[in-house]
């Protein structure tokens, strides 16, 4: 049984349809990437899974149970954690406090202040600083760390590389194996296709709200991916 | 085929009037004409009721202009009602001018006063702007209470009007109220049909986007604030042509704004028809509830307060909004439509 099953998801922004019958499945322990151009609906999909955006039609099953009507904070309780687009760290809290509030629900697991800071040593150095004065890369690490503090079963990563220098992106993705090794299931959204393909077991490509391709990176040719990404 | 560089004739024009709106104008003029004859055949109690109705309607239209169209919630409009009242006194008694001229003068004075207060008020936004306007109203009240020439705490009576025969004064006030009531509808319509109104509607939807399109957000808001203040002042003056006795606590009482808010929100925020519906309901509820429970004189306020809360949560567009969601009619033509110039052959 899949940990997450999205079936025929349809989502709208007012009259504008962002997702058309999107179906995605993620097995426990897998890392799945969703790639696609800007506006393809990738972030919308993650927000729907996290509970920040309503599904107008379709189903969402987590661990076999339907969750499309479950409130966001309850999904976190169940183990779904989103690292949102744009980081969205809390500017009036310090780095430590941001991490601590990540553990608000007190779910048990391997991730705590010590282990998160071991994963991202840069956070240990700025522990007391206000989160507002961090660099982009530090903020992204903090956002990921904050989500880990909730000890999720399903980690949703939205555009980790957005606005960051390649070297910083590399550092962040270098932490992935450790997160995976602890048993985490990861669903990540990326515009940076190379990074996504390198990190994922399987990949979905979205174009204008529809799934145009799915498979494992090893089995897919560049030309296929390109066609699915751009539509021609 | 036009030559490159030659101006292209626009294929569209902006049309606002609809058949409904044209009918409304005709009916409205007829109504006004009919109502104007009331002093000849009507009862004074009816005229007094209508004076209150039209004065409140005018004030509500002004509040609607601010909040419904401009998204500026003011709880301080009573400042200008009071200024209108005392302005009436100053220009008729102290300056000896006839009533209409006095009203014109106090309108001009209000423009200046409102412009100055906007300097303070617009330092704040949202809910804090609301309370800020209230503080400003309180400042006016306290200042007037301490000015001897304006009667200080005990207030003044507009002597020059006291001397007028009661029936004449009633008729005068009544026509002034008609003028102010219908005038306010006309004023808001004209404002919203103008470029200012278009800018205001844009600001209401998105300040940032409006500003990016070249709308001067600050200036637009201030102009609207001044217009609304002048409207309230004139309406206030008309009320006191009838009441004659001006006391600072009553003239600057927040109750004026309470009534404006109830009328607009219950009737329908952001639509010109809203305050009309609201004023009718307000008057009706006040009259019926005042009679039924004499031991509970503010019963109608509680009832209206509850109604307003229910409407804000469940039907935020007010009663007119509820009505038009079923039957989309617009009595007043504001919406702009692009209509093709081409003749149908």
């Amino acid at each position, binding site marked *: 049984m899949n940990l997450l099953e999205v079936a025929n998801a349809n989502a709208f922004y007012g009259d504008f349809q962002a997702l058309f019958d999107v179906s995605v499945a993620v097995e426990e322990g897998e890392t799945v990437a969703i790639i696609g151009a800007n506006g393809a609906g990738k972030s919308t999909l993650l927000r729907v899974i996290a509970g920040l955006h309503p599904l107008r039609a379709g189903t969402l099953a987590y661990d076999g149970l339907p969750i499309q009507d479950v409130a966001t*904070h309850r999904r976190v309780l169940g183990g779904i954690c989103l690292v949102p687009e744009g980081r969205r760290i809390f500017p009036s809290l310090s780095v430590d406090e941001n991490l601590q509030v990540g553990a608000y629900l007190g779910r048990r697991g391997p991730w705590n202040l010590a282990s998160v800071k071991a994963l991202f040593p840069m956070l240990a150095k700025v522990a007391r600083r206000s989160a507002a004065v961090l660099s982009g890369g530090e903020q992204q690490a903090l956002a990921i760390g904050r989500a880990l503090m909730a000890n999720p079963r399903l980690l949703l990563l939205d555009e980790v590389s957005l606005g960051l220098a390649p070297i910083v992106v590399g550092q962040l993705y270098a932490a992935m194996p450790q997160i995976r090794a602890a048993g985490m299931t990861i669903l990540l959204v990326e515009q940076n296709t190379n990074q996504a393909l390198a990190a994922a077991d399987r990949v979905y490509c979205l174009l204008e709200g529809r799934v145009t391709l799915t498979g494992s990176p090893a089995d897919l040719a560049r030309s296929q991916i390109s066609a699915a990404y751009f539509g021609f | 085929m036009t030559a490159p560089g030659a101006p292209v004739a626009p294929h569209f024009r902006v049309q606002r009037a609809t058949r409904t709106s044209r009918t409304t104008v005709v009916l409205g003029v007829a109504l006004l004409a009919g109502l104007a004859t009331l002093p000849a055949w009507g009862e004074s109690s009816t005229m007094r009721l209508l004076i209150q109705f039209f004065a409140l309607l005018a004030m509500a239209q002004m509040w609607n202009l601010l909040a419904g169209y401009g998204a500026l919630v003011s709880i301080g409009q009573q400042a200008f009602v009071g200024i209108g009242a005392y302005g009436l006194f100053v220009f008729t008694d102290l300056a000896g001018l006839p009533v209409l001229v006095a009203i014109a003068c106090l309108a001009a004075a209000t423009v200046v006063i409102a412009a100055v207060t906007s300097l303070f008020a617009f330092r704040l936004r949202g809910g*804090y702007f609301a309370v800020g306007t209230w503080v400003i109203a309180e400042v006016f009240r306290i200042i007037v209470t301490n000015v001897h020439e304006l009667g200080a705490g005990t207030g003044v009576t507009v002597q020059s009007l006291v001397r007028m025969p009661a029936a004449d004064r009633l008729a005068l006030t009544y026509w002034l109220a008609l003028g102010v009531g219908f005038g306010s509808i006309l004023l808001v319509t004209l404002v919203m049909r103008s470029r200012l109104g278009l800018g205001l509607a844009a600001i209401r939807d998105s300040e940032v986007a409006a500003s990016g399109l070249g709308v001067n957000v600050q200036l637009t808001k201030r102009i609207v604030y001044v217009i609304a203040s002048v409207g309230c002042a004139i309406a206030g003056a008309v009320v006191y042509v009838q009441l004659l006795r001006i006391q600072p606590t009553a003239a600057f009482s927040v109750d004026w704004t309470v009534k404006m808010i109830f009328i607009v929100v219950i009737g329908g925020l952001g639509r010109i028809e809203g305050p009309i519906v609201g004023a009718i309901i307000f008057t009706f509820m006040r009259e019926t509830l005042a009679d039924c429970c004499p031991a509970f004189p503010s019963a109608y306020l*509680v009832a209206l307060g509850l109604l307003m809360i229910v409407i804000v949560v469940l039907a935020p567009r007010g009663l007119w909004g509820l009505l038009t969601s079923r039957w989309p009619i617009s009595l007043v033509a504001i919406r702009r439509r692009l209509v093709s110039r081409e003749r149908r052959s």
Partner: protein
Amino acid sequence: MVWVNAVIQGILVGGLYALLATGLSLSFGVMRLVNLAHGDLGMLAAYLSLAIVSVAGIGPLESLVVVVPVMMVIGYLLQRSLLNFTLRGEVLPPLLVTFGLAVIIQSGLLTVFSADSQGLNAGAIETASLGINDQIAIGWLSLLTLAVAVTILVALQLLLSRTGLGRALRAASDDGEAARIVGINNRHIYGVAMAIALGTVAIGGVFLGIRTTFGPADGPARLIFAFESVIIGGLGSLWGTLLGGIILGVSQSIGGQISPAYQVLAGHLVFLAILLLRPTGLFSRPGAREA
């Protein structure tokens, strides 16, 4: 010397204003909600105390043991059953609903208790004072009020900075959506914030009721004093609110010394001056929400 006394009295009443202001500041900070019924809810607390005092025969200070929890429950329920539904992102609904509430509460109090002036009698402590010299005397009650105000502010500050609940309140105030994704139940947290707000305004309302006489229509004046304290002190800082309250108190006291008619006006004028010259307030935290 009489001016020094005026300043001292102003400082003492400033704590009270800060207490009234805290709830307003908290609900704006966490929920972007300016509660126009804030002052009237403080009056409700004072009248509640009055009712308990007359029924149970205890003093108003003792009645706080009942009044504060009752007001906190009212705050939580009010937020969850009504105010949460107005927080859809637009500016008008919360203002209109709380305004309607204010009118309803005022009318209700007027009907139940009549328009008569009331007072809460705290007994001997009201007149006992600490004489400094023959021109300055500090009332024990005023001192107690200031002490209570500062204690509550310290406690609130500790709650916000040291506890999980406090972190959640600050997180929700920074970014409501991000708060949801770390598992915070915003509807509940907003209820807690309103409960705290009404708890503090209840204490302020009762102390003010002991200090001066009050009537059903006094709510708006309290709202205005609370609001002025917040703006003078600057948003986003509890200590700013305390200092704002003290500045307001001192301004009123000095104005009142010049002439009783100028007391409240002096506060208004200082408030307007701050608006004109330093709209963010004197002690605002950088990054705090704009008014």
